[in-house]
Structure formats: C-alpha cells, structure tokens
C-alpha cells in the first residue's frame, strides 16, 4: 500500500498571524515543490479560505482536506478536519454562533482576508479570530464528530494554547482521533516525558504561517489512495508516521 506525504496544519492569509503571501495559489505551488500529496487548511476559528484552496489543489492533483484550528473556551487549539464542503459549511455556521463579537485590529494583529484563486480579496473578517470560542473542548469535539469529522488537539507539547499546558492532562472523556506535536519535539522524546501517552497516534505538521514553512515537517500516511475515507481509516488504524523532517520528493512521479 502506498505512502502519502501530508502536512495537515497550514494557515492562509485569513489567519491574523498568517502572512499575506499565504494565498491558495502560493500554498498549492509550495506544496507541489515540497513533494506533499495531502495538505489541510486550518485557519484560526474560520474556514472561509478552504474552498478555493481545494479548487486550486484539485487542479494540481493535491488532496486538500477541509479543516480549521479552533481555539476553545479553555484556549486549547484543536485541529478539526471534515469529509467534504457540506460538513465544513455547517461547521462555519456553528463557528459564526460561537465566536465573540470582538472587533479585530488588523494594524496590531494582521489582516484576516479571504481571497480567490487570482489572489483578489473577496472577504475581510471584522471579528477577531484569535480569541477562544464560547464552547469548551468537549462540546467542540462532539460537534466535529457529529459532522463526521476528525478531532486532533494541536501542538500538545507547547507551553501556550496546548491541551497539556491549559488543562494539565487529557480529559478521559475526550475522544481524540490523534494528537499533534509541534516541530520542537519528536514522538520518541515526547513519550519519554509523558509515558502515559504511549500507544497514542502522533501527527506532526508544519503549522505554516509563511510559504517557506510549508512541508518543513510532515506525517506520512499509508492509504489505498488519496481520499477522505482512506485518510480517516489510516488515521484510526494508526497507519501513519510523524516525520520531523521535510518529505523527500521522488524522481519520475510517485
């Protein structure tokens, strides 16, 4: 069964901290250069740049998983992945009810814009996408799973916005499909300090905010072919491996 190189944590220009250079076109071009076959778009508390990334990805034969990086009430960042655009649209309706109406200060925090494939701005979010939403982490996890999605707490080893720093330990009731580690650590080193998490599946992705960061590390998945059902199956069966290095592109195709 073939292996696919994936980077499942990429921000676009819609995230306040994301560079304006992170347009869908640039992201896909960079993913191709880096030898990625699967990516996920995960902006903070919004999904409004996902569809155009999927369209650009389809044209370049890159699978783009629709996603979001949600900041919960406890200020834990969680990666949420969805099977298709319909589920993502329902999730966006949920987010619109969930985010606080705090005005965004683009001068201090950066622009929050959605663009089209030609890099023209089509939407600007006026509410801050950076603060925690109304719901706690368990409520979010249920919403994601009810929509057929996949739920992965982000960079759990980090001292800020990570599950372990904010909540001390992983709540028993929380159904995590995998756990993401930051670039600062490897799964082996992490398990040394957290032996209680041995056997859990760990993902690593770039958390890219600039084009040059895309694919700076990756996770490889063993799947029959590139597609949501295969991806979800590989994830749940732990047929993946976190690689703290960029993928190696093979000559002459895959």
């Amino acid at each position, binding site marked *: 069964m073939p292996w696919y190189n994936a980077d499942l944590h990429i921000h676009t220009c819609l995230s306040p901290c994301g560079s304006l250079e992170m347009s869908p076109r640039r992201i896909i071009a960079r993913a191709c250069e880096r030898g990625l076959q699967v990516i996920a778009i995960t902006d903070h508390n919004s999904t409004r740049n996902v569809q155009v990334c999927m369209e650009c990805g389809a044209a370049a034969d890159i699978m783009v998983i629709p996603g979001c990086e949600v900041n919960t009430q406890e200020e834990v960042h969680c990666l949420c992945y969805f099977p298709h655009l319909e589920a993502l649209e329902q999730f966006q309706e949920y987010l619109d009810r969930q985010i606080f109406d705090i005005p965004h200060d683009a001068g201090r925090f950066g622009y929050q814009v959605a663009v089209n494939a030609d890099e023209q701005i089509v939407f600007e979010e006026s509410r801050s996408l950076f603060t925690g939403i109304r719901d706690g*982490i368990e409520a979010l996890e249920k919403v994601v799973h009810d929509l057929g999605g996949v739920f992965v707490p982000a960079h759990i080893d980090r001292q800020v916005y990570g599950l372990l*720093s904010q*909540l*001390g330990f992983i709540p028993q009731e929380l159904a995590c499909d995998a756990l993401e580690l930051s670039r600062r650590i490897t799964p082996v080193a992490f398990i040394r300090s957290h032996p209680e998490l041995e056997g859990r599946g760990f993902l690593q992705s770039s958390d890219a905010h600039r084009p040059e960061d895309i694919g700076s590390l990756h996770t490889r998945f063993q799947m029959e072919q590139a597609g949501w059902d295969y991806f979800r199956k590989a994830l749940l069966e732990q047929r993946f491996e976190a690689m703290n290095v960029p993928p190696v592109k093979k000559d002459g195709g895959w």
Partner: protein
Amino acid sequence: MKTNLRLLAKELGLTCLAGDAFLDRTIEGAYVSDLLSDVMGKANAGMIWITSQVHRNIVAVSSLKELSAIIVVNERPVDPVVLAHAEEEEVVILSSGLPAFETAGLAFNLINDN
C-alpha cells in the same frame, strides 16, 4: 489562627457551588492561575486556587494537589456535571462575583490578617 473557607466565603461574598460539607477546611495560602499544568507544578496542599477555568479537569487537579478550594471568578458558569464530580471528589468550588485581581486582593488581606 488560620482562617477557614466559611469565613472566607462570608467576608468575600462567595457562593458555594460544591462541597459545602467541607467549609471548615483551613486555608494555607492561595494561588492564582488559569493554566492547570502550572497549578499542578506550583500550588501546595491547603491552598485556595483562584481561576477563571471551569473545565472539569479543575476537579482532578484540586483533588490531586489536596487544595482547600477552587474559587471561580467573575461568576463564570460551571457545568452541573463538573459540580457533581466535585461533590464526589470532596472538592469545594466557590464562586466569586469579582474579577481575579479583586478576589485575590481581598483573600490576601483576610489570610494575612488571621
């Protein structure tokens, strides 16, 4: 003499949300933090813990560290499931109508005067 939770609740106008059978517990000091990993590392037994966190993990952390009570500030709503869990674990949860700074200031004066 060390002060206890009952006196603290009276002086600061706190509402007891869980564990009212344990209000005679004495207070050995206080710790203010919303990061549970920080509380696990730095708080000591007998302390009250002032926080705006309401996730159910606060109960386990309080129980693990043998804290005197959790004081949730700003009248943040606490889920009934969390309160029921606190009752089971004999963890006291008090609610303050004031922000963390004012709650901590009043508690500091009370603890040091007694």
